[in-house]
């Protein structure tokens, strides 16, 4: 079963590879190099130059994600469990949620400088709203009766959290992180074109300016793999943390 899923993904990767290869052969211009040449280049320069850029990008995503979970999870929890908190906080969240966060980048660069902080704040903002709303909705969706057998035995808040709130909100929380992650990577690319000499965004745009298309493509492939890696990690976490979701 699992083996066949792995095979189908492998077949998908092969199909993309072949399509790319056909396209490059048809166009026959440097702007679409053959995938073989790109992968050879990637292997060649990964340790020398790309690795450090990939490391910076991963660090920014990890820091932004970590901060977003640290703030977003408890906030969503409080809004979901305490109706009063929701009444006061929901308008704030709803009014700020539709603001395109990327448009705030100039402000953050003015306030926090063009360095690491403004980039991490950007990632944080993209993910945190999704997490807050997902966790809150996850808790709202719990039927009232679920709590009764616990309350009638005098369960503490810690026990209610452990037995109900945490597991009930986990699947929606993980889905939110997965959805936000895709946006976060795009935004990361954008922020890395300013005020830094490190990161995949910088590497790709720099290769583009140097008209080094092979390096540029190698960078794009590497950034895609970072995205794939993060998705894989999220799937793995979901697999082990939400076992009850799989069967049946």
């Amino acid at each position: 079963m699992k083996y066949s899923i792995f095979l189908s993904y492998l077949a998908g990767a092969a199909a993309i590879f072949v399509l790319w290869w056909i396209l490059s052969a048809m166009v026959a211009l440097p702007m679409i190099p053959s995938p073989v040449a790109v992968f050879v280049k990637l292997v060649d320069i990964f340790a020398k130059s790309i690795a450090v850029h990939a490391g910076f990008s991963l660090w920014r995503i990890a820091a932004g994600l970590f901060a977003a979970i640290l703030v977003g999870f408890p906030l969503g929890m409080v809004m979901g469990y305490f109706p009063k908190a929701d009444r006061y906080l929901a308008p704030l969240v709803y009014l700020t949620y539709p603001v395109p966060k990327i448009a705030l980048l100039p402000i953050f660069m003015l306030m926090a400088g063009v360095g690491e902080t403004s980039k991490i704040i950007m990632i944080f903002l993209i993910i945190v709203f999704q997490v807050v709303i997902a966790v809150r909705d996850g808790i709202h969706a719990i039927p009232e009766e679920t709590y009764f057998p616990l309350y009638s035995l005098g369960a503490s808040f810690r026990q209610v959290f452990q037995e109900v709130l945490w597991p009930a909100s986990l699947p929606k929380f993980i889905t939110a992180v997965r959805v936000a992650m895709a946006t976060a990577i795009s935004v990361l690319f954008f922020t890395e074109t300013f005020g830094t000499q490190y990161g995949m965004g910088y590497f790709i745009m720099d290769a583009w300016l140097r008209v080094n298309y092979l390096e540029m493509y190698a960078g794009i492939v590497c950034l895609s793999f970072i995205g794939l890696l993060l998705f894989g990690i999220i799937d793995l976490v979901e697999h082990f943390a939400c076992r009850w979701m799989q069967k049946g």
Partner: protein
Amino acid sequence: MTMSHSIEIQHLSVGYDEGRFKALLDISLTVPDGTACAVIGPSGCGKSTLLRVIAGLQKPTKGTVLIGGERVNPKKQKIGFVPQNYGLLPWRTVEENILLGCRIRREVEEDTMERMQLMMGQLGIRGLGDRYPKELSGGQQQRVSLARSFLLRTDVLLMDEPFSALDAITREDMQEVFLELWQKHAVTTMLVTHYVEEALYLGQKIVLMSSYPGRIYKILDNPLFGSSEKRRQPEFFAMGQTIRDLIKEMGKSA
């Protein structure tokens, strides 16, 4: 430790909208220690509300509820509550669900696991310990829920339409399974139902409630309680008809 765990309800009223809408009006009722009481009435008679107040989940507007002579306090008394949908946690396995009550009360002792296995055997759910609730049939979920309640040896057991979601045949089976367990543990029990036959089979005392506002219309002593032979006898059907007539009469007078 032979403490009495009777349920005493004294002049209990519950109102919504600052008392304008009365869900329950002046309910007084005593369920003696180790007996079972069935509450029956039309929807909207507040029978679920009554159960919630007894469980300490909702505060009464007026009156008191005593369990074992003390005011209801979920931290003090062990109140088993079985909601309509069995109250199983979908993210916990069968075993974890059965142990939930013991875990909450921090009463997982040396013999708990052994007793759980025994009880799962009695209930015919042995071997399902690692499954999740959604992998079980309704009847099996109900059995898990019963195992949870009886494993923790609660002081009182409150059940809100415990067998209503089951099909007719499974329901009768489950009532028998429940009764067998109940007779072993003799825990003070209040169960809410809208099936006359269920009340007759499982309630030593039957409380008829009328609606808007919810109040007690009549309390009957039930000589037919717990006998599966009498369940097929004419007197069982006759008594059932009597209760139906009372419910109809109650509907007219309201």
